[in-house]
């Protein structure tokens, strides 16, 4: 990716306890900012959870939100992850119409994307794909003409890109 993205990915390390997600979400809600996607799960230490939140906000107001997030007692650390400097993954499950006439074409697409078929019905297929959000968008677009019956994405999770050069 070359152009600066207009959405922002925040990785928020929080205490793993009741009400913390509501506190974080509240700071976006009171300003009228929509949370585009959200993923929450405990880290390797059960006492902490990592919230990966994608918001569509300009940089200046975001800086203020980040400062306000930092003020929350249960928030440990916040980093903004520039998609250019991070690795991202998202999981998508998708059910698509797959009658005998188009089934092989759909399976070929799935194969090209390394998606797994996880359920097969009489005239439908459910597949899953974990990859970059962009690849998920691409597969979704290619399958849309066939008729998408159901679709669920997890929201992205991300970690900073590692240093590649030896010191």
């Amino acid at each position, binding site marked *: 990716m070359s152009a600066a993205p207009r959405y922002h990915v925040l990785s928020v390390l*929080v*205490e793993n306890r*009741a*009400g913390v997600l*509501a*506190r974080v979400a*509240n700071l976006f809600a*009171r300003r009228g900012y929509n949370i585009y996607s959200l993923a929450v799960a405990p880290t390797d230490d059960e006492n902490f959870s990592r919230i990966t939140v994608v918001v569509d906000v300009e940089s200046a107001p975001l*800086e*203020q939100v980040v*400062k*306000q997030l*930092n*003020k*929350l*007692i*249960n*928030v*440990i*650390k916040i980093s903004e992850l520039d998609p250019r400097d991070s690795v991202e993954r998202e999981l998508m499950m998708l059910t698509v119409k797959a009658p005998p006439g188009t089934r092989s074409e759909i399976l070929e697409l799935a194969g090209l994307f390394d998606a797994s078929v996880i359920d097969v019905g009489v005239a439908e297929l459910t597949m899953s794909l974990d990859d970059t959000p962009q690849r998920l968008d691409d597969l979704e677009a290619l399958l849309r003409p066939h008729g998408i019956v159901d679709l669920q994405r997890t929201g992205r999770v991300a970690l900073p890109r590692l240093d590649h050069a030896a010191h």
Partner: protein
Amino acid sequence: MTTTNGGAALIKALELEGVDTIFGLPGGAILPVYDPILDSPIRHVLVRHEQGAGHMAEGYALSTGRPGVAMVTSGPAATNIVTPLCNAYMDSTPLVVITGQVGTPAIGTDAFQECDTVGITRSVTKHNELVTRAADIPMVIRQAFHIATTGRPGPVLVDIPKDIVDPNNPAAHFEWYWPTDDEVSASLPGYKPTIKGHPRKIKDAAEMTLEATRPVIYAGGGILKARAAEALREFAELTDIPVVTTLMARGAFPDDHELCLGMPGMHGNYTAVTAMQRADLLIALGSRFDDRITGRLDGFAPDAKIIHVDIDPAELGKVRRPDVPIVGDCRQVIEELNKVIHKHLDGGREFPDRSEWRSQISGWQETHPLTFEQSAPGELLKPQYVLEQLRERAPEDCIVASGVGQHQMWTSQFWHFTHPYTWVNSGGLGTMGFSVPAAIGAKAGRPDRMVWAVDGDGCFQMTAQELVTASTERIPIKVAILNNAYLGMVRQWQEMFYEERYSEVYLSPDLPDYVKWAEAMGCVAMRVESPEEVGPAIDKANQINDRPVVIEFRTDSAEKVYPMVPSGKTNDDIVVDPTQPDPVGRNSGATR
């Protein structure tokens, strides 16, 4: 090891935190906690409305510097205390508020007097916590006081379900323990306020201060929270820089000091407003560039560089981007700054010539002092005259509380604050009805001081019932109602900006009968209508120390608060008292 139960543990925890007064009102869900209060040395002040409990706790905190404590029951009691929580949050006042909650099995079932208290108060508290296990109570109370009083202070709410404080519930019993400071810190891994300012930034600030030719110190409420009044005075005197004190900082720097310019802002005095506007350096100490200070932002202090010191990193750059941002405790940072500047001066460094700036400032003070026209015999009282008389006849360390509106601005303008923690008011939220309960809380916290509440007739009607509390609890505050029969500040805006179309602002001077009402609440009450009665009535009130006193002053409703920076205008467009000359050097094209 001693076994205890949740209710007894809660009261013991409050005792160990040094609480001497709780403002509250019992009810179903908090009942088990009210039983051990009977055996506690803590004084409980029984309020008449939960909003009163919250504002009393605020008045206590603002006058003593210690956290105020309020305790109420669940549901409607919790919702009634939301306004004081929000008020304390806006003004960074340390409070610990305890609310009862329905028993844990009933939470979320729409039980009687149930509401989602932590949900409702999440955005008006620094932190809140629903406790679900009795054994957690000592730690949660320790955390609450730690969070409320450190960093940028603020209100913390602790919501306590009935079953975990009920001595008849076996699950409410546990082995008593009292967490250490280290355990409290370790339990809050995300909470580490920055206290010490960055040395390099402090050096930069010193350098900028030494170079400025038109500097102004812009002191805010953070000075009082950080107990930095002495450090501020040393800084101002060391650098010979004039000081403006915001509405939240009145008393942080003595009004009778030659470097004091008084209050800036929408109703600030002309010199304070204009000095900030023309400054080449604003040294913002514990202030937050509130819209009532800056006026229209793009025209605010256009030539000024900014040094901004605040303990809350979120304030730096929120409104105006500082040239030197310093995160830290105001007192520590100012003391460090003083040291660095001292070193420069000892090394022979000198301030640039600021005589032109000084003479400009004294010129403004001469042409545009705060003023009002004395009323002629037979006319209604001028509110400013009443305030002058109150001020002259009260001891100089008298604590004064106010509500919100014209009377608040006049009090801030005409009182001479010479001591910190003598001004109790609602700044950020602008809560009408604040003064009576806040004054009661202040007097409960500082029984050695005289406490006057200056109130408007509109404000008084919102919380006056707490005078019953004051009478029964023998908390002898004094209340001056400036009765102009109007919601005065709204009337002023309608007169100035809505072509004198007065909509829903008239209140009547006679209904209610304030004297009868005050007497019914156990107060001594007086009505004053002419100037010669003002002084004697105040003197009489000042001698009464066994019960509250209320004086109703009939004041002129046509009187307006000047100066005024109209909403949406820049501070250059300040409107001065009509008897004074139009400011010279006003930007051409500015509208009146």
